[in-house]
């Protein structure tokens, strides 16, 4: 952990060498997320509810997903940029260091410009929380935290899978973006609005709905079942196959890499 802090400060020093670029990327990130916010806003200018959810409820949903995604990108960017690490030999250097490989990949990148997106989510959340009509008791607060934290881990797992694929293809696979960027963009609305098939897929295959739709039901009082509160934790099981897949990829690299 101390070592990670060291890496962290190195990244800050590096990125502060390019203050203007950092500022623009941050602003860009903010604006992209803002566009998504506007799309929700205009949607609700015409309709009172979407899939039975109100404006404020959808905004919470949106903010949670953005927050989870930007957190996982802030920390787990090393996996998102893994093809580059593999291509420029950075991974070989990681292999000759006496430290855990996953840790080093994590530490190899910290993307502070994601804070732009994160701030957006904070603002939206601050707007929506008091207006949503939800009585913010401790269990609701805990549910919200579970959604954000477990959501971040889930996106991180997707980055790891993406990275593991590059062991086999040596290039990034854009189709994974359907799940990562796509998950974030479409996650602005509760997944139930996309129909039963999509919801099932996002429940049992890539459990994004476990950190979004189901806990949201509890959060908004649509169900009193306390189990829904802990559903996001269940989504963490997804990290096990992610890790296994990465290990498999590493074994393949060690036998074929160049």
């Amino acid at each position: 952990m101390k070592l990670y802090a060291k890496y962290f400060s190195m990244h800050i020093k590096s990125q502060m060498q390019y203050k203007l670029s950092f500022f623009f990327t941050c602003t860009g990130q903010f604006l992209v997320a803002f566009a998504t916010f506007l799309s929700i806003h205009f949607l609700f200018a015409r309709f009172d509810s979407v899939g039975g959810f109100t404006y404020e409820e959808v905004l919470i949903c949106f903010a949670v997903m953005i927050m989870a995604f930007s957190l996982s990108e802030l920390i787990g960017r090393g996996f998102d940029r893994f093809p580059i690490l593999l291509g420029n030999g950075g991974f070989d250097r990681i292999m000759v260091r006496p430290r855990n490989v996953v840790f080093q990949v994590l530490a190899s990148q910290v993307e502070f410009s994601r804070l732009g997106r994160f701030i957006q989510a904070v603002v939206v959340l601050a707007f929506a929380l008091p207006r949503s009509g939800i009585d913010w008791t401790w269990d609701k607060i805990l549910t919200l935290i579970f959604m954000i934290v477990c959501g971040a881990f889930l996106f991180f797992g997707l980055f790891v899978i993406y990275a593991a694929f590059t062991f086999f293809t040596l290039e990034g696979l854009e189709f994974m973006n359907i799940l990562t960027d796509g998950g974030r963009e479409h996650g602005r609305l509760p997944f139930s609005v996309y129909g039963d098939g999509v919801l099932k897929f996002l429940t049992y295959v890539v459990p994004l709905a476990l950190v979004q739709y189901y806990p949201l039901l509890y959060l908004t009082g649509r169900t009193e079942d306390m189990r829904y509160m802990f559903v996001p934790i269940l989504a963490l099981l997804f990290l096990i196959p992610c890790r296994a897949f990465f290990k498999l990829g590493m074994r393949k690299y060690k036998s074929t890499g160049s």
Partner: protein
Amino acid sequence: MIRLENISKTFRVRKRNAGFGRALRALFSREYEDIHALRDVSFAVNDGEMVGYIGPNGAGKSTTIKIMCGVLTPDGGACDINGRTPWKHRVAHVRDIGVVFGQRSQLWWDVPVIDSFELIRDIYKTPQAIYKRNLDELTDALELAEILKTPARSLSLGQRMRCEVVASLLHDPKILFLDEPTIGLDAVSKIAVRQFIKRLNAERGTTVLLTTHDMQDIEALTERIILIGKGQILLDGTLETLRQRANINASEMTDGNIATDAEAWVAALYKEYEI
């Protein structure tokens, strides 16, 4: 002590053919080609030895180094370095080795070199006293004191390479692998790096294994040379035996024009083995 026995390594490469039609066909049926990067490579290096590992591009030098560093796992054969198998005991093994990849930097581009060094100290958990001693000695020997506060991106190639060497030695490795350490350097830097490696080997008894295309490196540094071509060890001997061997052939080939400088006799050897 480094010991390699019958190490072999095959890469499976997908055949890529020219032309659109063939590229299209390759989408459906893949043809593979086996490339034997290493075939039954065996050699041993004693503690404190300095060995030059030479061969043309694509001969398998880097693959051998990567296997010895624990980056790659060979298909067959055994490798024992100070009682450990690199790819099985990676973490324990790499603590004892230093690696310089001449064409790839381990320094942080945008921060002062000294910060990179300190991070490396923390990665290896080197005690502060040892780190301090090494840093002072190394910066002194390589005349780096003035550039420690400079970011790596502002360094000349020669300065950077000297910093790379320092970065690889801060944790007191017993073995140093150098993969083309003098590539692209000017004469002054080359000589500085060479002299330093020589001193390191003499004073600390560090085992050094270096690959290079620069024959002056070899002449200046190593007593012993291992020649590899097409994945096989072709010659393993002292500089003198290799030179003599090359001269015999060179004289046959060039009608008595005996190759004198290193470049020429190595070229003659490459020719002889058709590598």
